[in-house]
């Protein structure tokens, strides 16, 4: 390792274990809550691994999420694509961010999510029916983890059911592309499709978020393009996250039989277990990527204006000052002090719906297929090598 890399190690590194961070992350964290790391393009940014520091920074108005600025750290080559840089809501600062968030908040309240419980349960049961009819033997990624959020989000946003395959591949195309050109192409297709869908809803409002928000286009509050972009962000943010999380959680539970038993026996309530899965798995290595507009003093460091900041959810969630034995998976922990959904004004809009889908997905799977086990050995599990989410390519299971 060169002295530069010793001082600022490269980030991110791929996980080799589906649920534990790479050793290099633990080494970086052991040096303190804030450290310099080197991105793929040679840029140095601050990596935040302390929970308190992460929260403090993410609620600081001097942090910008504006991805269109060159100061914004690009975490992977494909994210240079304009389709990945021009994201409304997640890539906006106030006041525009707040305007868009306020339009969507009522659609994602806890009450709204709970009202969807029955529908999600029915859809998950249907998927299990199909798996049982075809098996024993299934790939949980294609037959379970992908269709759950894909159908839930399609229905919520108002995307016709017959188009959800297109959506699944187009959103994966934007976020998991090998390069910027591929990502841009997928983004363009998605944007064109959504613009058409908004037009249809402008004429005849459908039963979904798009249909409910067209009145704001009619009264001039937002443009047709803005609404199409909002729908795109919802689909991108809602699919890859939950669909990556479901298989990772299944692997983790199968690898910890005592914990799985505590879940299936009812000794630990499902929501409590899901909270620990969220903490432990984090799904992405970076819950927040920002740049600073002004110098900030924190934890004995000075972050200079235009510096980039990456908050590592993986390591912040394992801060020993917050969690005892942070690297131990304990579903009874039930602690919401994790930054898997981020923190500050950009904290995940869909977190209530995500929690609900995960609760139903795990509970139903292990209840209805009690003898479920991996169809391959643990060391044959392949982590996905594209995208910014931790995930597996396939998850063969048998029973």
């Amino acid at each position, binding site marked *: 390792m060169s002295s530069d890399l010793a001082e600022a190690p490269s980030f991110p590194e791929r996980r080799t274990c589906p649920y534990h961070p790479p050793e290099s992350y633990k080494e970086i964290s052991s040096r303190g809550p804030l450290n310099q790391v080197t991105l793929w393009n040679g840029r140095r940014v601050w990596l935040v691994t302390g929970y308190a520091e992460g929260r403090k920074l*993410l609620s600081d108005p001097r942090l910008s999420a504006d991805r269109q600025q060159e100061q914004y750290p690009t975490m992977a080559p494909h994210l240079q694509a304009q389709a990945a840089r021009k994201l409304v809501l997640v890539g906006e600062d106030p006041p525009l961010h707040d305007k868009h*968030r306020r339009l969507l908040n009522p659609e994602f309240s806890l009450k709204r999510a709970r009202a969807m419980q029955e529908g999600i349960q029915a859809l998950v049961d249907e998927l299990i029916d199909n798996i049982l009819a075809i098996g024993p033997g299934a790939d949980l990624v294609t037959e379970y983890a992908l269709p759950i959020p894909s159908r839930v989000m399609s229905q919520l946003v108002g995307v016709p059911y017959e188009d959800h395959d297109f959506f699944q591949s187009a959103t994966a195309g934007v976020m998991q592309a090998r390069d910027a050109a591929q990502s841009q192409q997928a983004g363009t297709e998605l944007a064109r499709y959504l613009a058409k869908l908004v037009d249809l809803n402008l004429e005849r409002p459908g039963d979904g978020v798009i249909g409910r928000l067209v009145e704001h286009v009619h009264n001039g509050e937002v443009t047709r393009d803005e609404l199409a972009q909002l729908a795109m962000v919802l689909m991108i943010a809602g699919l890859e996250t939950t669909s990556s999380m479901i298989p990772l959680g299944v692997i983790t539970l199968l690898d910890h039989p005592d914990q799985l038993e505590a879940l299936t026996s009812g000794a630990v309530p499902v929501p409590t277990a899901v909270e620990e899965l969220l903490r432990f798995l984090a799904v992405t290595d970076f819950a927040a990527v920002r740049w600073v507009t002004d110098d900030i003093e924190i934890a004995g460091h000075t972050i200079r204006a235009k510096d980039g900041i990456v908050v590592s959810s993986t390591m912040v969630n394992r801060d020993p000052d917050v969690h005892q034995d942070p690297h131990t998976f304990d579903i009874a922990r039930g602690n*919401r002090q994790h930054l898997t959904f981020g923190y*500050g*004004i950009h904290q995940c*809009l869909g977190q*209530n719906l995500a929690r609900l889908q995960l609760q139903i997905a795990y509970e139903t799977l292990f209840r209805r297929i009690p003898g479920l086990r991996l169809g391959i050995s643990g060391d044959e599990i392949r982590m996905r090598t594209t995208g910014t989410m931790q995930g597996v390519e396939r998850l063969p299971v048998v029973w």
Partner: protein
Amino acid sequence: MTLHVSAARERCIGAGLCVLTAPEVFEHDDEEGLVSVLDPHPPAEDHDDVRLAGELCPANALQLTWTT
């Protein structure tokens, strides 16, 4: 000790952690999906939940004041 709870709706981002953590005290309204306080003076047994809700709120929208 009396606890007085109020919420700054102009700061609220509707994340829902308060409703999840202290459901006796906080609720989301139907119109805007933002916090409303059900019980501004919650009983002592709810104080821990309310304190945690205040800590978890990503937008610093909850104000907790204790008076004797």
